[in-house]
């Protein structure tokens, strides 16, 4: 074994893992519905590749090589586990077309079907996004746990339980029929959005794990659009993720300080991504069904256009928030809407439009609520109240740069 062949083999294996992990898991698990067994077999196949490829050279079709080995491993594992005649049936299903399917250069892409299984309404809503990240992208439980702010052991247990449920309950691997597609697609998009939101809350990209999650959610939303190009909300989500990603670099200055949208330098934005987002949104709008992701992307688009043209468009922004509020009833939307109202009608009107803590006690611990509240109070000249609200916002923020930003705002208040 030479080290050159070794590193070439490693490089090829890593590239295949990055490109095709989910495709291989989906193909292996589609008929048995046993995601855990598919993952185990695949990880053994990758280990075998790292032993074999440096010696014999990388195969011309590494995906097919891995798939063949993984299927043999899966059959071996099943043989070890099942002793009864029912094992015969399972093994037959797995071995079926073992050589024919692999001989074809194209492995059918069933990743979308796999995502629909992971985001099935029968799966606990909180674990759907982590599950997709694991089985479609191959992220490990520790990494997912740290992104979702939970312990690795707890996340691991929940992932195992969800995979057991898919297998035991007979959750199908398939893209739902036309009539139920919109509601089922919702749970898939929601999961991708959850992954995106986790990544987005680390604007500096200093936390490697969470920065990766934005890239992963971009990859996943692109995947959904490729396979369902006529679904307006899928297009909307991709546009939204692209818009957010396009401005990532501008959200921090060279000192690492947080820069709010109004003060960002548009020259630092990724205009190629913005143009792509705008084109997607335009295409979505011709498909005749509006939804929350299109509205959120449209808001991003409005913010970009205001900065590009220098023309205030707050009436349009408030209108979009009104529509978004109507479909989501989310307090987060209400907060952003109030901030936009401040630009249009002043801070007093905005404070009146803020959601009430009495109606939603979760706001007590919601940093953006307190940051927005403080900002509006400061604009209204209620300096003491603003100072208190900043205190709470600072106390709730875990991003150091944002905390520093809030501290600066607070100390700028007139005494």
């Amino acid at each position, binding site marked *: 074994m030479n080290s050159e062949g070794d590193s070439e083999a490693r490089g090829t294996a890593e590239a295949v893992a990055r490109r095709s992990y989910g495709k291989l898991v989906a193909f292996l698990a589609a008929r048995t519905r046993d995601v855990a067994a598919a993952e185990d077999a695949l990880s053994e196949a990758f280990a075998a590749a790292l032993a074999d490829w440096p010696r014999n050279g990388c195969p011309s079709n590494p995906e097919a090589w891995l798939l063949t080995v993984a299927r043999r491993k899966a059959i071996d594992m099943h043989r070890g586990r099942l002793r*009864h005649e029912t094992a015969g049936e399972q093994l037959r299903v797995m071995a079926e077309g073992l050589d024919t399917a692999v001989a074809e250069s194209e492995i059918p892409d069933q990743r979308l079907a796999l995502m629909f299984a992971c985001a099935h309404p029968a799966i606990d809503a909180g674990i759907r996004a982590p599950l997709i990240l694991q089985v479609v992208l191959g992220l490990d439980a520790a990494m997912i746990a740290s992104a979702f702010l939970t312990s690795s052991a707890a996340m691991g247990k929940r992932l195992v339980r969800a995979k057991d449920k898919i297998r035991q309950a*007979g959750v199908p691997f398939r893209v739902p029929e036309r009539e139920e597609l919109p509601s089922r697609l919702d749970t898939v998009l929601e999961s991708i959005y959850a992954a995106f939101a986790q990544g987005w809350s680390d604007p500096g990209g200093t936390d490697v794990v969470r920065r990766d999650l934005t890239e992963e959610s971009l990859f996943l939303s692109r995947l959904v659009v490729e396979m369902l190009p006529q679904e307006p909300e899928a297009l909307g989500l991709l546009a939204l993720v692209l818009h957010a990603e396009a401005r990532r670099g501008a959200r921090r200055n060279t000192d690492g300080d947080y820069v709010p949208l109004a003060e960002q330098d548009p020259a630092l934005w990724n205009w190629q991504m913005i143009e792509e987002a705008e084109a997607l949104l335009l295409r979505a709008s011709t498909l005749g069904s509006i939804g929350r992701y299109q509205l959120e992307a449209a808001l991003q688009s409005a913010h970009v256009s205001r900065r590009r043209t220098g023309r205030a468009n707050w009436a349009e922004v408030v209108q979009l928030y009104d529509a978004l509020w109507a479909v989501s009833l989310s307090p987060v939307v209400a907060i952003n809407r109030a901030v936009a109202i401040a630009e249009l009608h002043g801070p007093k009107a905005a404070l009146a439009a803020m959601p009430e803590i009495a109606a939603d006690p979760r706001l007590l611990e919601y940093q953006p609520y307190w940051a927005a509240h403080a900002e509006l109070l400061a604009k209204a000249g209620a300096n003491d109240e603003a100072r208190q609200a900043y205190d709470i916002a600072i106390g709730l923020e875990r991003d150091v740069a944002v905390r520093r930003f809030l501290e600066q705002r607070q100390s700028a208040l007139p005494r």
Partner: protein
Amino acid sequence: MKYILMDYVQEAGWPQLTRDEQIHWLGAYKAYMEAMTKAGVLKDSRGLEPTSATTTVRVRNEKTQVLDGPFADSKEQLGGFHIIEVADLDAAITWAARSPTALHGVVEVRPVIEGTWLTRNILDFVKPE
């Protein structure tokens, strides 16, 4: 796959219905079961006598304890079940959603193990060595 659809309903609600309402509901159940039979998915189906007829039995310290009433005191009670054979969970959920019970109670959908402990190899169900 085989699934059991368990109908949980509020027993106390039934006597409060008028005779016509009761006839209406039982007609709806009959139609539902006819549809399952026609589709060839219904394997078995039973209604249960009310929980007032239920007795629970335990053996503790070699003594048999017999108690009046159901094991769990809940708002809704198991009133009956259907066993169906369909392709996957989505198909089972579709049938559960058509049940008249889903309109006023809850239908619990649960996979059924193929065969029984008499016909299956029990080693298939224990931890690997």
